[in-house]
């Protein structure tokens, strides 16, 4: 009999978070009383015990080299006893017990090129996805668009003067990796041409029946091309969802005519209005790298019009509901087109089924 092989170590899960919590948090875990936002990027949590925790938040591109991670570690060692965390929107936070270190830390972060802000009624980091950097499905580049937009919106990251917090999200295709469908402003990569098929490889690497079944509109049909079994797309039926491409490696939506759409008025929190989806504002803007000027100015316009008109605590979507969509389109100068009218499954639910109209057009 051979000896039993050394059992392979697997399924250990995540390390317990306890190891990574600073002592002030361990002491006051579950016993916080309230918080304050003394300046942009700093949240002070006051415990029942009277202890105060200072969290300093800095913007991050999320796509981080290990060099930068080591830099963050070094900064943490210097200012926050080595304790740091990342937020649900990919900002980095340093957790300080010593208020005296807050200002020096902020200075240091800025000096290294990491702006401090994103708290309260600000624009915080843009949640985003892989883009051309890494995903096969991307209709645009995530990081490039985010960088271009945030370069322009930085003042809103570093201040807290908006009517309410404003959340921007980016996704590079309809899969929408992130909460793009529920953001104040969503930037969404759009393919515009039905999938292209690599007939040469299809028979080899693609399950034809599965691919046919994957299409929600029945647009994928069997076909024989150059004597080999393959597929064809009924173009008028295709809604560009990409599902067939997700199951069949020989199909791709990527095309130089891809671009970007802009959506507005979604939210996630239950504060005041129930959570809601983002709605279409601009159906298409071109991919214009490296700076995507059309996208940047469209987003900036939305932010500025919102900032000028919304009331305090009114998220983008709440503001639009108050003034009505006709006025939103007028104020932002965006054209209302056929594309804005839903035509998918529950389309009829979005029609205006009352005469509640603010000053109807002549």
């Amino acid at each position, binding site marked *: 009999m051979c000896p039993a092989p050394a059992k392979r170590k697997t399924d250990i899960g995540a390390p317990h978070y306890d190891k990574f919590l600073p002592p002030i948090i361990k002491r006051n875990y579950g016993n916080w009383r309230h918080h304050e936002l003394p300046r942009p990027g700093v949240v002070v949590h006051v415990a029942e015990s009277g202890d105060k925790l200072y969290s300093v938040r800095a913007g991050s591109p999320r796509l981080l080299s290990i060099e930068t991670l080591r830099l963050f570690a070094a900064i943490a060692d210097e200012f926050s006893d080595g304790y740091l965390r990342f937020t649900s929107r990919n900002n980095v936070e340093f957790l300080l017990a010593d208020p005296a270190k807050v200002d020096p830390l902020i200075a240091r972060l800025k000096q290294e090129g990491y702006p401090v802000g994103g708290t309260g009624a600000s624009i915080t980091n843009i949640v985003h996805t892989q883009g051309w950097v890494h995903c096969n499905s991307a209709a645009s580049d995530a990081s490039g668009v985010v960088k271009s937009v945030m370069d322009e919106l930085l003042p809103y990251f570093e201040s807290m003067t908006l009517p309410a917090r404003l959340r921007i999200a980016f996704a590079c295709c309809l899969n929408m990796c992130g909460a793009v469908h529920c953001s104040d402003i969503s930037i969404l990569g759009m393919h515009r041409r039905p999938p292209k098929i690599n007939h040469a490889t299809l028979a080899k690497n693609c399950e034809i029946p599965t691919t046919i079944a994957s299409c929600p509109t029945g647009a994928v049909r069997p076909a024989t091309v150059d004597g080999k079994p393959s597929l064809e797309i009924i173009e008028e039926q295709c809604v560009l969802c990409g599902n067939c491409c997700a199951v069949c490696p020989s199909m791709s939506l990527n095309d130089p005519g891809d671009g970007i*759409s802009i959506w507005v008025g979604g939210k996630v929190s239950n504060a005041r209005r129930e959570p809601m989806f983002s709605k279409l504002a601009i159906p298409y803007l071109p991919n214009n790298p490296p700076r995507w000027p059309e996208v940047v100015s469209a987003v900036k316009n939305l932010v500025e019009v919102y900032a000028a008109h919304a009331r305090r605590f009114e998220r983008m979507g709440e503001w639009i509901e108050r003034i009505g969509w*006709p006025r939103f389109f007028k104020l932002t100068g965006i054209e*209302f087109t056929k594309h804005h*009218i839903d*035509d998918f499954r529950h389309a009829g639910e979005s029609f*205006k*089924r009352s*005469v509640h109209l603010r000053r*109807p057009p002549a």
Partner: protein
Amino acid sequence: MTEKKPTPLLDNLEAGPWPSFVKELKKSAKSPMVQDLLGVLERSYEDKMGHWKHGGLVGVRGYGGGVIGRYNELAREFPDAAEFHTVRINQPAGWFYTSDVIRTLCDIWERHGSGLTNFHGATGDIIFLGARTSEIEAVFGELIEAGFDLGGSGSCLRTPSCCCGMARCEWACYDTMALTYDLTQTFQDELHRPSFPYKFKIKSSGCPNDCVAAIARADLSIIGTWRDDIQVDRTAVTQYAAGGQIDIAADVVARCPAGCMTWDGRSIGIDNESCVRCMHCINAMPKALAPGKDRGATVLVGGKATILGGALLSSVLVPFLRMEPPYDDLKELIRAIWDLWGDHGKNRERVGEFIQRIGLGNFLEQIGLDPQPEMVAQPRTNPYISYEPKEGRP
């Protein structure tokens, strides 16, 4: 006529303060048809089930609609209720009558039918309930002589109907009765000869109170509204405030759906840019407030009950249309809808379902209207945009 059978269950419904339909049946029971109808109905009350059969084809020469054939399963037992057809008759707009014309109608129906009526059917027609096939032409002839004509049934336009509007109501933003009369006369052919994929109903209300329930049950709803500011009579406001019958802050201002009213205890403020023209404040203070002076109507499309894909409320098609005779814009729009739906609608597909199937955007394009944000509660939330092929080229 079969011998008079006892109807103990129905007799029970003669008692009580609300006017009794059983009394109505008995008043007409000198007609053998109604006598047998009582028997049939008593049977239904006994066995908790209806006994009418699916309609058959009954009608008037040259017309495809207006009569609903109705036959009974219990014909052997109740032969005089074996045939009990319905005759639908265009009502005068607003349902106004004189005693004379009522008597004329009663006389015709006494001569040729059961003597039972509905004043009115749910669509708005005058209904004569209970004709034999053999009498249909005679009823029709006499009605025509009296100035009346048949309503719609099957895949016809149905008799348009409307609220009493300017005849009596201070809020009518256009003349609903004039419009309804005009449409009824203009579209006689569509009313009488089935030419649509399914039924089509037009209803007109003079203001957003919608007293004819158009939005819920008309394929085309025409609902009065205004563009300018609500008219305010400051003296009357003061009287309301003093009168104490209404709490202006709680009952009016706090209930404004647009949140666009203010009240400082003395005067009312309305942000008319934000007002959604719901009528509430006007309803609550009819002496003090009134719709603006720049009046017209919102035209909505596609309302219907449940069958088949679920009920639909009408949705905005033209946010604001001035409503003046000869109503050419409106008629052109109606014809464009009928043409498109007529060509592409499926059998038994109401226009509201048709629009959902082909997409409102496509529908607008086909009938030649521009998309407007007033047509939607909100723009699309799903990203399945159908770019035109040309848009997809870089």
